[in-house]
Every structure is written in structure tokens, then in C-alpha cells.
């Protein structure tokens, strides 16, 4: 009897063990649903037409790319391509592709798909901003299929750092009837409710496995709720309805950190920067004497010296920002010119510099040598609290030099119209959201002929010697194959920008995010997407989630 009972107990234990093992295996495989918010409606699901943050997030989670910039190490890593080689002249890149990979709909992946994607990407009628980065010189970009797993892409002129650009190119299927719905990334778009949410489900054919040989991704699905209101997003996160917030403001960060320190993550200075600049456009509708101030290097440098960047970082961002040095954040490990330092706050030196070029104080107000009181307006976009606060603090800093500053907040369309079309403004405070580590991503800013050369855009020929020098150096770095030479050129660009201060760099805000404790494997970084760059390896802990 006892023997039977013992046997029965042993059988029960064995059965329970089996059930437990099966359940644990199922839990590991069945990773649940990750939830977070998109700040706006995705404008497209076509990976080649992506131009907005929400679509970018979806492309990152669904698109398969040949190579991927590791968001943690900032190094380039092979993905669909096992290896790649760039020709000596910098015009041809040859990829060796992985074999045995299928799209989410089961159609096989081969070099034909890469060729199809590149042809579509470079089609001028598509107007792809991703494709624009690949345009170099005149002539078409062509492809040469060497075999099912090897392809060369030939450019009319060399593109420096071209291999990194493929991080943005999600490969599309040449043959699938599902078009962009057939993907090579870890997730597929399963459902889209306009104005409400996007549901991504695990791609059953995803090719990657984890170190234990289990198929990735671990998560079953990701629900992206479309929510533009940041207050609501934070409330939902606090309630446990969301698992992460990719980017949060310093105000929210501090409040969250005060209540739940383990959930708030500060990854350090990001690649983003906020800066101020003066309107130097020759035919801008501003008084001639003001244009003379704004075009004076001494005036710009004096303003830069008068601004207390440490206060901006500490007060406006609660310490979650660093005084900015120049066009490249110190977070950009390779391209940052470490010889440069942020302009220190030296109001006395600023006054001396101004006095040296004819400015003088009179009854507490600053006047130029023509007797005009120094007064100008700073425009910034309404709704951006950090920029509004920075503008008000600059107003006070410059007030100590006797300069009267009027802060004007405008709705974004009006602001853009003023700074890029009518040039009817004097100074502006705005920011640059940098997603590209390579300086080629800033060509549209630094070339004097560029539309985004904010202080004086679309010049037919460089109006100053230093702008001509920046043009030369930027073109040189963009065409040089030697990385060391490129770095030297771009280091010099950074030095010229520091000397001339066309942009007065203010701060590099830190990359702040919030991640629930139920998300395991998260390692928030500074590169976009900060929190879910390793989404395929994230898991959810049901126990922690239930306790929230």
C-alpha cells in the first residue's frame, strides 16, 4: 500500500515536473505583449518612405537590414549580410548575404530582393529621404547580382561611410504579393487602428536565435498606442498600462525618479543639441545695423560667452544635460573633437569683446558704435518648455550686458515660415535631433548652399571665407575613403564652428527614458530607438507585471 502510494506520489511529482518544465519553456517562448506609445500617427508603413519618428520606430521593429549599428557600442554589425567589402575607389560595396532566410510570408530572401530594394529606393519618383543619403554625383546607382547570396551596389561617386547608411534600408521582397507587409525583421504589422494603435506580432520566420538556440524574438507582440499627450503617457506608465517610454522630458524624469527610482533611466548626453543662431541672410527684412551685429564674429562670440550653459543644464534640464561644445555631442565617441571645450560663462570677457568692436554701455543699456541700442528678439517654438525656459534665461544673462532681448514663441508652422522662407526674424533657439553618427548626415546643415544652413541658407557661393573652408572640408570628408582623413577634416569643421559661432551651441540633453521593471533585458542607450533597440531580445516578467 505504502509502495503504491509512494509510486503514485512519484508519478504525481514527475507529472508536475513535466508540466512545470513545459510551462517554463512555453513562458520563455511565449513572451507576452510589450506596450508603449507612439507620439504621433505613423505616416507610412512603406520602409523606404519613412520620414517621421513613428514610422521610424515601426521600421526598426519590422524591417530587416543588411547591417545594423549597434545602439550600445555604436559599431556596425552584420545582419542579413554576413560580410561586406568596399572597393578602393569607394564607389562599390559588395555584400555577402546569409542563406536560408525567409520573409515573414515565407518567400525566400536573396540578392534579388536587395537589388529590388535599391532600385526602388533610388527611384527619383519615390522621393525617399532614405534614398537621398545615397545620392552622390550625377548618374544612377546600379546593382550587380553576383549570385543568390552576393550582390554589388555601384555608386556614381564615392560615398564616405556608405556602409552605415544601410542601417536605414529595410530590405523588401521582390516577389512577395504582400509588398511591404512581407518583412525580414523580428515583428510584422498585424493590425493598425488609425488614431488608436498599431499591433506588431512576432515574425514566425525571423532568422535570429539567442545564445541558447531559442528563436527570437521572445515577445509575442508589441502594442504601440498612438498617444500624443505626454501627461497621459506618463500616467499610463505609472499605472502599469505601458512598459516603457522611449524619450521623456527632464521634468517627468525627476518626478518619476523621485517616486520610482528604478524605472527612470538616464543614459547620459544624447546626440541631440539645442542651439541659438542669428539671422545673417543678406536680404532679410531686418535693419542693416542689426545685420552688421549678427555678421560680426565678435558679437556672436560675446553672446556665446555671456550665456551660462551650466545654469541652462542644471536649471532647465535638472542636471540631465551637458553644456554643448559644438556640432557633435561628446556622446558621439568617434567623431567628437575632444580638443574642444564648451564656451565657459565669462560675462566680463564678453563685455570686453563687445567694447573692442565699438559697443558701449550707457545708463545700463548697450549701444553699438552708431548709437543704436542693442535689442533683438529670439524666436522659438511654442510648446517646447525647455527651449522657452532657455530663451528666458538667455534673456536674463544678456540683460546683464545691457542687451534687451524679447522672447517670442510662435506656433511651429509660423516659425518655420519665418526662419526658412521669409527670413523675418533676428535670432532663434531651436534644436537638432541627430540620429546619425556620421557627419555626412549633417551635410544639409554645413554646406553653404544647403537649405538647412540656417543662419544664411542657399548661398550661391560662400559669402565668407570660413564658410568656404567648411564647404571644402565637408566635401573632402564626404568623399575620402580614409577614415582618419575624414576625421581630421571634420575635426577642423568643429574648430571653425567654435571660432565663428554661427550656431551658439547651448546644451546636449541627456537621453532619458522610463522602463518598467517587468521588462527584462532592456539597456537604454543614447541612440534612437533608445529603449527598444534590442526589442527582439526583450522579455517580460509576468510576475513583476502582475505586481504593478
Amino acid at each position, binding site marked *: 500500500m505504502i509502495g503504491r502510494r509512494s509510486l503514485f506520489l512519484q508519478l504525481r511529482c514527475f507529472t508536475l515536473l513535466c508540466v512545470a518544465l513545459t510551462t517554463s519553456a512555453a513562458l520563455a517562448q511565449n513572451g507576452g505583449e510589450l506596450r508603449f506609445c507612439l507620439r504621433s500617427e505613423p505616416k507610412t508603413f512603406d520602409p523606404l518612405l519613412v520620414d517621421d519618428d513613428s514610422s521610424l520606430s515601426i521600421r526598426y521593429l519590422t524591417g530587416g537590414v543588411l547591417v545594423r549599428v549597434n545602439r550600445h557600442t555604436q559599431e556596425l554589425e552584420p545582419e542579413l549580410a554576413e560580410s561586406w567589402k568596399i572597393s578602393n575607389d569607394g564607389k562599390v560595396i559588395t555584400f555577402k548575404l546569409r542563406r536560408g532566410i525567409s520573409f515573414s510570408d515565407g518567400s525566400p530572401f536573396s540578392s534579388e530582393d536587395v537589388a529590388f530594394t535599391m532600385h526602388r529606393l533610388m527611384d527619383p519618383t519615390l522621393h525617399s529621404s532614405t534614398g537621398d543619403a545615397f545620392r552622390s554625383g550625377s548618374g544612377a546607382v546600379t546593382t550587380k547580382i553576383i549570385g543568390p547570396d552576393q550582390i554589388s551596389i555601384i555608386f556614381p561617386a564615392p560615398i564616405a561611410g556608405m556602409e552605415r547608411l544601410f542601417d536605414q534600408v529595410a530590405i523588401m521582397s521582390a516577389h512577395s504579393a504582400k509588398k511591404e507587409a512581407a518583412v525580414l525583421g523580428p515583428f510584422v504589422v498585424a493590425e493598425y487602428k488609425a488614431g488608436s494603435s498599431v499591433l506588431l506580432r512576432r515574425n514566425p520566420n525571423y532568422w535570429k536565435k539567442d545564445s541558447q538556440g531559442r528563436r527570437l524574438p521572445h515577445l509575442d507582440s508589441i502594442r504601440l498606442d498612438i498617444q500624443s499627450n505626454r*501627461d497621459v503617457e506618463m500616467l499610463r506608465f505609472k499605472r502599469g498600462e505601458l512598459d516603457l517610454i522611449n524619450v521623456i522630458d527632464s521634468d517627468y524624469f525627476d518626478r518619476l525618479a523621485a517616486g520610482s527610482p528604478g524605472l527612470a533611466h538616464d543614459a547620459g548626453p544624447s546626440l541631440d543639441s539645442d542651439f541659438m543662431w542669428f539671422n545673417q541672410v543678406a536680404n532679410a527684412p531686418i535693419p542693416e545695423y542689426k545685420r552688421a551685429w549678427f555678421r560680426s564674429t565678435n558679437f556672436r562670440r560675446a553672446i556665446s560667452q555671456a550665456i551660462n550653459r551650466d545654469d541652462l543644464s542644471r536649471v532647465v534640464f535638472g542636471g540631465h544635460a551637458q553644456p554643448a561644445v559644438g556640432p557633435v555631442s561628446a556622446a558621439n565617441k568617434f567623431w567628437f573633437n575632444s580638443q574642444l571645450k564648451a564656451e565657459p560663462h565669462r560675462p566680463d570677457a564678453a563685455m570686453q569683446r563687445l567694447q573692442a568692436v565699438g559697443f558701449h554701455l550707457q545708463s545700463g543699456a548697450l549701444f553699438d558704435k552708431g548709437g543704436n541700442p542693442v535689442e533683438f528678439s529670439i524666436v522659438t517654438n511654442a510648446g517646447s518648455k525647455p527651449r522657452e525656459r532657455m530663451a528666458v534665461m538667455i534673456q536674463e544673462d544678456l540683460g546683464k550686458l545691457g542687451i534687451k532681448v524679447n522672447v517670442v514663441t510662435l*506656433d511651429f508652422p509660423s516659425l518655420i515660415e519665418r526662419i526658412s522662407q521669409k527670413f523675418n526674424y*533676428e535670432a532663434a533657439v531651436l534644436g537638432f535631433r541627430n540620429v546619425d553618427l556620421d557627419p555626412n548626415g549633417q551635410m544639409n546643415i554645413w554646406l553653404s548652399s544647403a537649405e538647412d544652413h540656417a543662419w544664411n541658407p542657399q548661398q550661391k557661393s560662400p559669402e565668407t571665407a570660413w564658410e568656404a573652408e567648411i564647404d571644402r572640408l565637408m566635401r573632402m570628408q564626404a568623399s575620402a575613403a580614409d577614415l582618419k582623413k575624414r576625421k581630421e577634416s571634420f575635426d577642423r569643421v568643429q574648430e571653425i564652428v567654435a571660432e565663428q559661432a554661427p550656431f551658439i551651441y547651448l546644451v546636449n540633453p541627456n537621453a532619458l527614458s522610463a522602463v518598467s521593471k517587468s521588462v527584462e533585458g532592456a539597456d537604454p542607450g543614447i541612440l534612437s530607438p533608445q529603449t527598444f533597440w534590442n526589442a527582439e531580445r526583450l522579455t517580460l516578467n509576468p510576475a513583476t507585471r502582475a505586481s504593478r
Partner: protein
Amino acid sequence: MTFARKLACIVVVAVCAMSLAANWLAPAGYAKQFREAPSAPPSRHHLLGTDEIGRDRFARVLYGTRISLLLAPAAALVSTALAAVVGGLAGYLGGIWLRMARGFADLFLSLPWLFLLITVRALMPLNVSPLVSVLITFLILGLLGWAASARVLSTSADALRNSDFVLQARASGLHGARLFVVHVLPNLKPVLYAQFWISIPVFILSEANLGILGLGVAEPLPSWGSLLRELEGLLSFREEPWRLVPLVLLIVVMTSFQMLLSNEEVPA
């Protein structure tokens, strides 16, 4: 006067008096940045704490109240005067003038106000001092806010035009401007007063709405609108209850105005 109206009157007078005495009550001023103490809680030095860049909240509330409470009536005066001219005259003249004025007022009322204000504000010159910007903001509100009042006034003036005493005055040989000034306008006074009082809270709230969009009074000058903007991102009332003071003040003053207004509406 009922107790409630007396209380409302005391509240409005006390708030106005405190705002006018801001220079003495808050000598630090509304613009000084105590950068070593941003977002500080209430203390002996800062009765309502400091804002995100270290400015004394108590001073900003007092000065903001002064601006909103002084300029909103001024804007109401402008809009009521415009309404009296357009609505009163159209109603008095009648016929095609009345139809045109009503059509024009209807058209004005159908305009998307907020977008119109944003557009007008964006077209303004940039290099104006904060004080000028606040005057312009309220002037715009006053110039754009006449239509509803004009419609009411045109109806009242139309009724007066057809009233027996005006007919009798006409029969006695009184015509034109003299008839309007002597007989019509005095009888429109109660409606004008009512429209004036109604407009004040409307303009305060309009400026607050513009302020929430960052398009109201220019920095560093405070207004109720810019003070209310600070409530954005306040996730829990319990964390920093002192930040609710501008909102409470707005509600109290608006309620007081409404209570006083109900008293004024009786003769209308």
C-alpha cells in the same frame, strides 16, 4: 445685496488690491531668477515657492493677476464699444443695415477663433517689449470679440426702434443722431453693461488659452495664462498643491464675477 454677492465683491476688491500692491508685497519682482533654487517648495522667502527657472511664484501670481484683471476689462471695453457702434447703430437703422450687421457678426462668430488669434499673433512684429505684447494681445482680443455682443445689441436696438416711445419721439420731429443719443442709447445701457461684464471673464479665459499655447503675454511678464501653463505635466495634485494657486484664483475670481454679473443682469 445678498451675502454671496457681498462676498464676491470683497473677493474681487481684495484680489485687485493685492495685485496692485504687488511691488510692496513681492519686492523681488516677477522676473528675477533665483537659479540656485528652481522649483523650490514654499518657504519664508518664497511664499508659493519658485517656478522651474527659480522665479518667485507669489510675485508672478500677483503681477499676473494685475495684468489679467486690468487688461481684460480694457479689452471688454473695446469690444463692447465696437459692439455698441456696429450692433446699436444697425439695430437703430434697421432694414438692410441690420441684415448686413447681423450677417457680418454671424460670419465673425463662425470663424475659428483660436486659429485666427494664432495667425494674428504670428503676424505681429517680433521685436516688441513684453509690455507692448501684452497690450497687443488684449487689444486683439478686444477687436475680435465684439460680434456676439453686437448681435445682442442689434436685437435690443431693433426692439427699441419699433417701441412706442421712439415712434412718439419721431412723431414729435426728433430724428437721426439726436434720437439715437437721447432715446435709444440710454435704453441700451443695461445691455451694454451686461455685455461688458460678460466679456471680462471671456477675455481672461481667452488670454489663458493663448497662454497655454505659448502665444499670450511675452516672457518674462506673467499672466494667468502663462501661470496656468505651469500646470502642464502636474501628475498629482498632492505632490505640489501650491502650484494650483493660479487655477484656484482664476476659478474664485471668475465665480465672483459671475455672482456680481447676475446682479447686473436684473435691469437688463
